[in-house]
């Protein structure tokens, strides 16, 4: 597989001295679904802006589809589609007009545009609303239209800057299914940034975790989580106060247990292959008069990975920008 994105020692220092991107190096293979996971202000948007020719880098090298981002920006613009964090569609135009105009910006042939627009409207399921003004679309519909506009010229590669931030769970999973379809069926390479753990986990074949401008870990979600080493079993007891110590003693004798700590539920057990251990634990406790309330098994999450590398949790800020606030005020 050939690399479609190669980034080496990329640095971006803003004019006020802030180091938004601090020496990052990564590559994305053709056809890959790659992601940047990190909290707000980690440098995700800055990186996307540099990669999509919108922002000049301070130093380092970036090549997209074999083109140098400084010297061959016009070539890059022909092969990429970009969806920015803001839903940047023209509310005065209809959905169809928005996509058509974007086709003209790509200097496509009018006949080709017409065909492609119909395809895209069907792809994102906006048939019924295509000839209504986009201003009146719901937040999810606007995002879908925005996605369609960035696909009009059949880009080889799609950049998505937090494509589902501010959306309700249902709209989010709709967008997810479109993205997976695009990646699999149209073989579009996708580079996505997100602050949502589930999003990165579900969509990305490979991802980099980014914090304060640096990549702190890279790999597939499975690999990254495997690094954490241990699954967890959270056990609640009917009478936690009375049975806590006794239960811990019993569990400690079982083979494969790494660590036992007191937790919210009552006890949390960390173990390498915790799935296998559940039966042993239940059996051990059942032989006494300890009554189990519930047993919850969980594999490590990307949040645990982030925690391990940065000492912090990612707090996805569910800052829902009301659509009206995005368009209101200054729209002349």
């Amino acid at each position, binding site marked *: 597989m050939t690399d479609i994105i190669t980034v080496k020692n990329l640095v971006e220092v803003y004019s006020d001295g802030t180091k938004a991107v601090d020496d990052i190096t990564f590559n994305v293979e053709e056809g890959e679904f790659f992601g940047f996971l990190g909290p707000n202000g980690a440098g995700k948007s800055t990186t996307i802006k540099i990669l999509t020719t919108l922002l000049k880098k301070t130093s380092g090298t970036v090549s997209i589809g074999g083109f140098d981002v400084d010297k061959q920006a016009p070539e890059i*613009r022909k092969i990429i589609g970009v969806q920015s964090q803001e839903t940047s*569609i023209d509310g005065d135009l209809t959905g169809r007009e928005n996509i058509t105009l974007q086709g003209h910006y*790509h200097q496509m042939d009018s006949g080709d545009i017409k065909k492609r627009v119909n395809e895209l409207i069907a792809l994102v399921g906006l048939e019924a609303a295509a000839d209504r003004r986009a201003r009146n679309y719901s937040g999810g519909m606007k995002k879908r239209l925005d996605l369609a506009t960035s696909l009009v010229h059949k880009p080889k590669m799609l950049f998505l800057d937090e494509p589902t931030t501010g959306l309700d769970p249902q709209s989010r999973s709709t967008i997810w299914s479109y993205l997976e379809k695009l990646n699999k069926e149209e073989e579009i390479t996708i580079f996505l940034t997100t602050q949502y753990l589930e999003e990165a986990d579900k969509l990305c074949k490979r991802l980099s975790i980014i914090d304060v401008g640096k990549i702190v870990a890279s790999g597939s979600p499975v690999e990254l989580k495997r690094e954490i080493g241990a699954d967890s079993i959270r056990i609640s007891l009917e009478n936690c106060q009375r049975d806590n110590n006794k239960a811990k003693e019993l569990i400690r004798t079982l083979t494969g247990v790494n660590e036992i700590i007191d937790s919210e539920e009552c006890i949390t057990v960390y173990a390498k292959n915790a799935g296998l251990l559940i039966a042993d634990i239940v059996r051990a406790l059942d032989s006494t008069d300890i009554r189990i309330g519930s047993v919850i098994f969980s594999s490590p999450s990307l949040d645990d990975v982030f925690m391990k590398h940065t000492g912090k949790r990612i707090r996805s800020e569910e800052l829902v920008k009301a659509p009206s606030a995005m368009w209101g005020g200054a729209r002349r």
Partner: protein
Amino acid sequence: MTLLSDTRYIFIRYLTKLVRTPILLFFSLFQPILFLVLFTQLLGKLSSFPGVLPTGVAYLEFAAAGIVMQNAFGSALQSGNSIVADIDSGYLQKMLVTPVSRPAILLGRLASDAFRVVVQTAIILGLGYALGVAENKPFYVTTGVVGILLIFFTLAFFGLAWSGISLALGMKTRSSETVFAIGGVITFPLLFLSPALFPLSFLPGWVQTVSMFNPVSYCVTATRALMINGYQWSTILPAWGVIGLVALITMSATLYQFRKVVS
């Protein structure tokens, strides 16, 4: 030619937006029309005082040139808001990740501004004519169709020069409030410190002096000449020169700001 076709699509986009937001069109026409009706009613008697207005000229005829000028001002100053809106919504950025011709982004906007000024000028002239008929003093453009076209040209050219100010301001401040505030602050003094609505001889000495340095004075005088006197090239050509000079300055500022936004 991608520049031309890109410009055309962007021009059509802005016109579509304008037509679909009639309230904007209404407000930008509202003020000039209000002035047209109000001033000509209030000051209609001026023509009965000898020596104030040129002989045989009704105030309506006199003021029409000033009103269309004011209209050109108003439309031009909205231009900056459109660019602020496109920056805020991320739309401009979305254009910039496509191969769309960069100059076309500005040219399309300016073309739509010019088109708008021409249409609004036509509306005002039509209304002026109707008002003249109603008062039994019909007001024609003496230079005829060619003269009207030259008036359109002068005002569109003037509008472009002024769009440059609001575009540069919009890109610099990224705030439509600022564009409106500064726009308002410069429009009215420039309009009233010129022979736009009152004959120069009617104005105090210092205003007469100031008006000599006011580009608006030259444009109003040229437009008025085309409406009332005929092809007075000695006033028309200098006016175009002055507009050209203003345009050169404001467009340089716009280009400078645009380059900063684009790169």
